């Protein structure tokens, strides 16, 4: 591996280029019409224009990316997150062109992208999944299945997704009434009336575990992250380690993630996501087969450079440390600064970034793909920067977060800065007593 094409944009492209250059590798950036002046374009050794601004015509155009890699003599492709990172078809196209895809095998991406297959893999690995039933055909079957699953249950359309086709049910009586309606709704919405039951879990936290696995079969974790502060399934604040987690639960959840990665023959960096209930039970949700936005908080508490490890693993080298060499040192929080208007239901708001003053100091890291004068275009996500604040303990990390927010100045677009200021001072957040619906309940007008 000598030259890497970075098949992404913005802050993660910058992050990958930095890691590659530090490892002595050359980089090729790609850019769309809107991104010709992008910071990552300037930082890379070479840059290739790959198409129009709309992502479908540039960053999602796998043929254009293969062509860019081949024409520049790149021998590997780093997909970053989003875009083509979890598309098995694209990973296969890269491999077929003789390029090393910096991620797991095509078959692993495929399996973990299939809800049912991923759930089966978790079961085989002895990792708990959310209690659920197979398809239920009629009311009698549903009532019997619900006894095993345990109320309250969700009636879910098998063909649904993204939160659609889900009905909560609290009792037998309600289930008798809801089931036929849910089937009819599924038939008309998804042309498939198959429904199944799943336990409804209230007040759960989103806990995810970072894993690294190499070709030699070494699988390690760099502990968990708590990403419970979400709005419409978008994470806004992430913390590592998860505050207030009992040591036994921490060990179990981290070990479960490693077991799953081992079970599926995982290679590379990945994240295993769980729901953690108020009673301390945890259930597998899904595995993300790529680097994640919030990876820097794991780096901050362990000293591990996750992107460098990705590059090592792709080059056929082992993970650079063993499990007992990695420990939690302190705490870290990531605040996502997005171009969204908190006063207008967080409407994404493109515009010209007339000023961008970034914070600094001990324990403050800023990952961004922008500089002052850039345009935040409407074609991609709204993230301007990630503030990653860490310290010897959680209170220090949060205090540095507050200071960083007060130093940060963004002019030209509305941002989530004011919301973060408020959230860091919320008693529930300070107490680590939040769950995945907490933010939507706190800001009911925001959704």
């Amino acid at each position, binding site marked *: 591996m000598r030259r890497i094409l970075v098949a992404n944009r913005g802050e993660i492209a910058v992050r990958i280029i930095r890691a590659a250059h530090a490892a002595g590798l050359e980089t090729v950036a790609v850019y769309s019409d809107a991104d010709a002046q992008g910071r990552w374009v300037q930082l890379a050794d070479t840059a290739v224009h790959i198409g129009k601004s709309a992502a479908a015509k540039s960053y999602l155009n796998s043929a254009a990316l293969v062509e860019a890699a081949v024409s520049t003599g790149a021998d590997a492709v780093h997909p970053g997150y989003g875009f083509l990172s979890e598309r098995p078809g694209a990973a296969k196209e890269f491999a077929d062109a003789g390029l090393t895809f910096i991620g797991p095998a095509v078959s692993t991406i495929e399996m973990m992208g299939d809800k049912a297959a991923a759930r089966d893999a978790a079961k085989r690995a002895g990792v708990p999944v959310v209690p659920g039933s197979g398809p239920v055909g009629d009311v009698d079957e549903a009532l019997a299945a619900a006894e095993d699953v345990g109320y309250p249950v969700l009636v879910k359309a098998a063909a649904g997704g993204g939160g659609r086709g889900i009905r909560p049910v609290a009792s037998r009586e309600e289930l008798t009434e809801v089931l036929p309606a849910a089937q009819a709704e599924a038939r008309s919405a998804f042309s498939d009336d198959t429904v199944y039951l799943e336990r409804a879990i209230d007040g759960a936290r989103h806990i995810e575990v970072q894993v690294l696995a190499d070709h030699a079969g070494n699988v390690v974790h760099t502990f968990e992250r708590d990403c419970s502060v979400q709005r419409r399934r978008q994470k806004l604040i992430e913390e590592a380690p998860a505050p207030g987690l009992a040591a036994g639960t921490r060990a179990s959840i981290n070990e479960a993630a490693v077991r799953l990665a081992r079970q599926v023959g995982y290679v590379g960096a990945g994240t295993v996501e769980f729901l953690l209930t108020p009673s301390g039970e945890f259930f597998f949700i899904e595995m993300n087969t790529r680097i994640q936005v919030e990876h820097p908080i794991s780096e901050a508490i362990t000293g591990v450079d996750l992107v460098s490890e990705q590059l090592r693993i792709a080059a056929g080298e082992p993970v650079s440390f063993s499990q007992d060499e990695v420990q939690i040192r302190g705490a870290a929080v990531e605040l996502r600064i997005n*171009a969204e208007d908190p006063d207008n239901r967080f409407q994404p708001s493109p515009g010209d970034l007339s000023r961008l003053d970034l914070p600094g100091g001990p324990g403050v890291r800023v990952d961004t793909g922008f500089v002052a004068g850039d345009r935040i275009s*409407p074609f991609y996500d709204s993230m301007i920067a990630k503030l990653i604040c860490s310290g010897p303990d959680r209170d220090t990390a949060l205090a540095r977060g507050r200071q960083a927010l007060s130093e940060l100045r963004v002019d030209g677009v509305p941002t989530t800065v004011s919301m973060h200021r408020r959230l860091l001072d919320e008693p529930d957040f300070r107490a680590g007593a939040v769950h995945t619906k907490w933010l939507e309940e706190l800001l009911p007008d925001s959704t």
Partner: protein
Amino acid sequence: MTTIKAQMPGVFYRRPAPEKPAYVDDGDKISEGQTIALIEVMKTFNEVKAGESGTVAEFLVEDGDEVDVGQDIVRLGEV
């Protein structure tokens, strides 16, 4: 010439989902407030609504095109 203009910059779509039919076609009568297209802004989809009633004379942008604020999207004819 009466037109419907883009209220925000982004990517323009004529259908609610790739496999669905277009919201409206040339020659269709439309009424005030009716959804005629989508504009994707930072991965969120915003409905474009007709500001007045009329007939769709012509779409001035193609499905999947980039549009800017104030750009004419649809030319309207007589009701």
